[in-house]
């Protein structure tokens, strides 16, 4: 499905990361595999270090911190926020919406819309699409989009498939009407394969219990519980290598904007190997698709696209405008992509939690 929007711009983007850094080598001994075999994965997958918040910190805490930073530094005015979108699976509770909780903690006006959307890897792009739709309503002039992940309690430390690559971060993106360029987007949803990335327990289908919290040793040698993230690696990999390139090609044809016109591919960051193979499949230069987030921060779900942007191009995008392609793919299974002009932002920054106020 394609979308086209007119006169939309991103004016601010802030990524907030933990200052707690954990090195892959220091954790290599915690898995049920020989250390030497585990260390072989370092270069290939881009496992160097990942960042996690302290145990008590969850995504909404970081979002409140980040928005307060933005208020105090006059990046955004409280009164101007007409819509607050929280697009992540890391909610405070099942009820109420986390966006309402954040609104209350920050003392935002009541004449606004708060909205939670349950999306993971594609959450940034899905959040942008929802933001554009709200801006087209005529009632909303400024949207604040919150993305990210604080998943550590839902990933087994004895699961070598998942633990080394998880990271935590929060991003805050401000979207407004303006600019003269069209925005082109595509969305692909494949619920038939929704089990490929799943946390089986903890929802209404299978409430968490003592039983779902018990670690089990699996055939592949990893240990995880039903409360933990399960990733069917081959299925996810095949989705990214077959569906994503096709969807991007279709989007480029729809937008009539091609590789030569695109400055950078700012994609979700599952791991370095998967992204390099994706770039090769699409016949593009690997340097146009940065893949250094997993090795330096870890994969923080819907926070990765803002993070790859602020980390690699923060100061550039405060100065210049370029045509970029954002793409998020993963849980759902979902692939959502946007081609748009992006840049000359008021702020495009990466900050550390607890250090900048």
């Amino acid at each position, binding site marked *: 499905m394609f979308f086209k929007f007119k006169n939309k711009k991103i004016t601010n983007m802030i990524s907030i990361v933990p200052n707690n850094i954990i090195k892959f080598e220091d954790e290599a001994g915690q898995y049920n595999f020989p250390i030497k075999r585990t260390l*072989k*994965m370092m270069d290939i997958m881009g496992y160097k270090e990942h960042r996690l918040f302290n145990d008590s910190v969850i995504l909404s805490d970081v979002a409140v911190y980040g928005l307060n930073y933005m208020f105090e530094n006059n990046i955004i005015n409280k009164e101007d926020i007409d819509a607050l979108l929280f697009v992540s699976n890391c909610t405070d509770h099942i009820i109420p919406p986390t966006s309402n909780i954040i609104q209350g903690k920050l003392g935002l006006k009541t004449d606004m819309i708060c909205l939670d959307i349950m999306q993971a890897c594609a959450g940034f792009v899905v959040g942008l699409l929802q933001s554009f739709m709200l801006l087209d309503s005529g009632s909303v002039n400024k949207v604040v989009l919150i993305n990210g992940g604080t998943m550590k309690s839902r990933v087994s430390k004895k699961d070598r498939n998942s633990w080394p690559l998880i990271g935590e971060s929060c991003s805050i993106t401000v979207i407004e009407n303006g600019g003269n360029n069209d925005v082109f987007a595509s969305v692909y949803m494949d619920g038939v394969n929704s089990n490929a990335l799943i946390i089986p327990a903890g929802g209404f289908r299978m409430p968490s219990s003592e039983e779902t919290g018990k670690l089990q040793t699996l055939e*592949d040698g990893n240990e995880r519980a039903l409360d933990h993230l399960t990733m069917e*690696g081959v299925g996810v990999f095949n989705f990214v*290598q077959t569906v994503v390139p096709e969807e991007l090609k279709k989007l480029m044809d729809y937008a009539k904007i091609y590789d030569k016109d695109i400055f950078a591919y700012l994609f979700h960051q599952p791991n370095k190997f998967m992204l390099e193979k994706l770039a090769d*499949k699409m016949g593009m230069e690997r340097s146009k698709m940065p893949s250094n987030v997993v090795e330096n921060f870890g994969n923080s779900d819907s926070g990765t696209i803002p993070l790859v942007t602020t980390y690699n191009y923060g100061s550039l995008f405060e100065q210049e405008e370029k045509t970029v392609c954002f793409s998020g793919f993963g849980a759902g299974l979902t692939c959502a992509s946007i081609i748009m002009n992006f840049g000359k932002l008021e702020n495009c920054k990466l900050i550390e939690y607890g250090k900048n106020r």
Partner: protein
Amino acid sequence: MREKILEILQDLRPELDFTESNDFIEDGYLDSFDMVALVSNLDKTFCISILGEDIIPENFANLEAIENIVKKYK
């Protein structure tokens, strides 16, 4: 080529004899992470880039299958 492939496999799992299995995946010689490491090493050794759509268990099930996939990209 076969000798080089065997060398790579032995380096991945030195405790196993890869000439004794005809299905590395079924026999538990290679898991999905080993397959990724194998592809990365094959790419480097033979100066190729095996595309994602070909990174499926069937193409790495035994020495002959691996040889065939390398030849496809040479």
